[in-house]
């Protein structure tokens, strides 16, 4: 008999239009001392199952069938029993440390309150225990920090506090729902290590929910793979990932960017089993003719020279120490050669987005110059000439849900840059352009008449790409274009970008925090940290022989799906 047994769990959401099956016949077990991963793409039902275990499913969702047994006590859908278990036998860790803690209460109060709810301890004992807990999760100086408020802790530290709160009543089961998704790679590594240590030290059963295969490979003992509410495969992590049996799982594993080599394209199979080909078969000769693809000159296209950017106007009010904090970029220089794919990698706050905004003239640098083909972009004298160059630099963004105007039809969105930059262009020409563009990104002509909200994240990114390409840009900046997408969709979009670059001779600046993705997409890579450029190197050299310490750290800490082989 297992520590946790879930059998035939069915969860449904009844909306006015339809009934959504969030989970169908879900069955799995968990033992003490092991970490079970639940992995799946968005909409797979992983979070719903976790919420079901503690009976906190949002309306109109309901558990319609099934059994959940913890230590042989049936607690499915039974609020009375769950009330006694929540916090005491089961600890829950949510995804976003920013919003998980009540901003108006000190950490001390939140800990002590939880402890006193479940354990019969007086105030001083509870406080003592809280301090011990903070020590255990790795917070330095806990006697002092316990009196602070949540906003005084950084993201990673806050998540540690959340874990402490989940542990404070000595639970046996911990459920962590995407606990490290919003954290930087280095902090993610520490938090996952903490979880692994705690599992062993306290003999806990841990359910770790994530969409990141690398995390699964490095952290979990067993894994459950879900898709559309059903379990498609489960078993020992190493076995499932190295030798997936079901086509859905195979498709998932194949989409993960390898960390140890560069491949030409992702070989994709659809979850139903067939192979997905995306290449040039959609690009007809006529499109390439129309587009008069440029010759590559292999010359310097972009020269980013000594750029410093400080975000603050009232400089003279602040001390030198504070100026350093607000320095988004510090004397950064690099060059992009025409036709190449240049990667920019860094964690949050490194300045990567700032660079993108400076190149596209959304922000002005505090000092330094940016040359696009020998034209200084920020020199006020060049404003008139600059208009000629508009459209030659284009950008696609991270969030597919805010990158398209919800009030415009797709055809209007794509046509807008064309109409704006080529005033006087006839309607027929515009229509032809739009048709070509929607074909190139692999979507149907009917999509043109629809609105953004009718499309999924991946499809919206394709529309964004079509819009960006509408002005025949020479430099395409991709700012975390796939970070918000599921792994299988990411693979498709990355394939598309590779194809487009080849066919249209595009120069790409690829910005991401995700090292494996950057390895697949780029010829050369620049590593950024806190506004400083650490190194610029050819991709293979960077990964096989990193020179800067920070790069070495990043490579060491990134979760690798290949770790199952070691």
């Amino acid at each position, binding site marked *: 008999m297992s520590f946790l047994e879930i059998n035939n769990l069915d969860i449904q959401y009844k909306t006015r239009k339809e009934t959504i099956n969030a989970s169908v016949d879900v069955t799995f077990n968990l033992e003490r001392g092991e970490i079970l991963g639940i992995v799946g793409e968005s909409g797979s039902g992983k979070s719903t199952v976790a919420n079901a275990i503690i009976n906190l499913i949002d309306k109109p969702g309901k558990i319609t069938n099934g059994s959940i047994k913890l230590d042989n006590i049936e607690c499915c859908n039974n609020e009375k029993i769950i009330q006694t278990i929540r916090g005491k036998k089961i600890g829950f860790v949510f995804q976003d440390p920013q919003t998980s803690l009540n901003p108006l209460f000190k950490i001390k109060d939140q800990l002590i309150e939880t402890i006193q709810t479940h354990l019969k301890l007086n105030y001083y004992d509870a406080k003592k225990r809280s301090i011990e807990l903070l020590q255990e999760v790795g917070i330095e100086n806990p006697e002092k920090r316990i009196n602070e408020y949540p906003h005084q802790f950084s993201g990673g530290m806050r998540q540690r506090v959340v874990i402490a709160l989940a542990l404070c009543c000595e639970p046996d089961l911990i459920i962590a729902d995407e606990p490290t998704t919003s954290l930087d790679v280095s902090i993610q590594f520490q938090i996952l290590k903490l979880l692994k240590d705690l599992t062993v030290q306290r003999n806990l059963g841990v359910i770790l929910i994530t969409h990141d295969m690398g995390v699964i490979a490095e952290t979990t003992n067993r894994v459950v793979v879900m898709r559309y509410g059903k379990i498609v495969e489960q078993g020992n992590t190493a076995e499932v990932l190295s030798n997936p049996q079901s086509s859905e799982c195979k498709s998932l594993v194949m989409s993960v960017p390898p960390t140890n080599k560069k491949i030409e394209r992702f070989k994709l199979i659809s979850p139903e089993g067939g192979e997905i080909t995306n290449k040039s078969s959609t690009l007809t000769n006529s499109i390439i003719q129309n587009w008069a693809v440029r010759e590559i000159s292999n010359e310097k296209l972009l020269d980013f020279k000594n750029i410093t950017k400080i975000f603050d106007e009232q400089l003279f009010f602040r001390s030198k120490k504070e100026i350093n904090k607000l320095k988004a970029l510090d004397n950064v220089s690099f060059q992009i050669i025409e036709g190449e794919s240049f990667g920019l990698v860094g964690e949050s706050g490194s300045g990567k987005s700032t660079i993108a905004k400076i190149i596209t*003239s*959304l922000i002005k640098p505090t000092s330094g110059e940016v040359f696009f083909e020998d034209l200084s972009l920020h020199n006020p004298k060049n404003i008139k000439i600059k208009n000629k160059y508009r459209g030659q630099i284009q950008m696609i*963004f991270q969030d597919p849900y*805010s990158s398209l*105007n919800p*009030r415009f039809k797709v055809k209007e969105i794509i046509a807008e840059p064309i109409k704006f930059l080529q005033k006087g262009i006839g309607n027929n020409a515009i229509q032809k352009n739009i048709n070509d563009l929607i074909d190139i990104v692999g979507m149907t002509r009917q999509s043109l008449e629809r609105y953004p909200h009718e499309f999924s994240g991946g499809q919206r990114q394709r529309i964004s790409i079509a819009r960006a390409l509408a002005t025949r840009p020479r430099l395409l900046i991709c700012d975390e274009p796939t970070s918000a997408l599921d792994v299988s969709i990411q693979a498709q979009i990355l394939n598309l970008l590779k194809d487009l670059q080849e066919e249209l001779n595009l120069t790409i600046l690829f910005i991401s925090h995700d090292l494996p993705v950057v390895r697949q997409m780029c010829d050369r890579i620049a590593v950024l940290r806190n506004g400083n450029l650490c190194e610029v190197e050819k991709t293979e050299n960077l990964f096989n022989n990193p020179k800067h310490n920070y790069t070495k750290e990043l490579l060491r800490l990134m979760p690798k799906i290949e770790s199952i082989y070691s």
Partner: protein
Amino acid sequence: MISEVINKIINNDIGYSFVKSKIAVISTIVFLTILICSTFAELIAPYNPFDPVNVSLLDAFTPPVWVDGGSTNFVLGTDQQGRDMLSTIIYGSRISLIVGFASILFAMSLGTFLGVTSGFFGGRYEIIVMRFTDVQLTIPSILMALLVDGIARGFISKSLHNDMAIYVLIFAIGISEWPQFARVTRAATLVEKNKEYILASKIIGLSNFLIMFKHILPNILRPVLVIATIGLALAIITESTLSFLGVGVPPTTPSLGTLIRFGNDFLFSGEWWITFFPVIFLVVLALSINLLGDWMRDTLNPKLKTR
């Protein structure tokens, strides 16, 4: 064609919600009825009570038709000068509605313009506009309207003031309502401004003006509509209050508030209907608008959706 449109409305989330909510439908019907009646007052009201030809003191103080002494000529009775209550109410509601709509339109235009531009451009301009908004928001609309009206009275001579009273009133109420719009539109603009489709437009080189009015404005209309509807009810109530206090529309073109003031004198002497019916009408009007605004706020608010 029409069945297509109707199908589209019902399938649309908002349309469905509307048709399903009995309250929304009823209040819209009531509101539209009042609106139509007052617009076509000349055709609908049994008399024109402000044409002295129709009015005779002999008819004064006639009670409603279901009370002893009532007459079918005057279904809701007459007032102290012999004017038919039903007619005065219909004409009066027209004035109330005109002032209400005009002042809200004024407030909406001014407030939206200031809100969108200050949210978009930021900097000192935004700080100044927001200070104004903050300060004005602490001053209740009644006071603001009274102030503007009082100042106007000081500047304009009495006879001219009578003619201009309606415009002064519209201006006064409009000035007191614009901060609501400014605050909401600024907050919404700040949210939209950072969205990536706006960045995409900036990169192409669209002018600020184009971005604000072609891209941002259509996307922030929902909260504006909610505030406009609720503001309309508030404007009508404010106008009636000012007229009741004697500083609103001139007595020659009475609104519902003025009528209530007229009738107040007779409340204790037994002619209750002269006050009562305008009161009911005013409350029904305000209530229907508020119900509609309430429904709009619940439907159009993305945060309170239950999947």
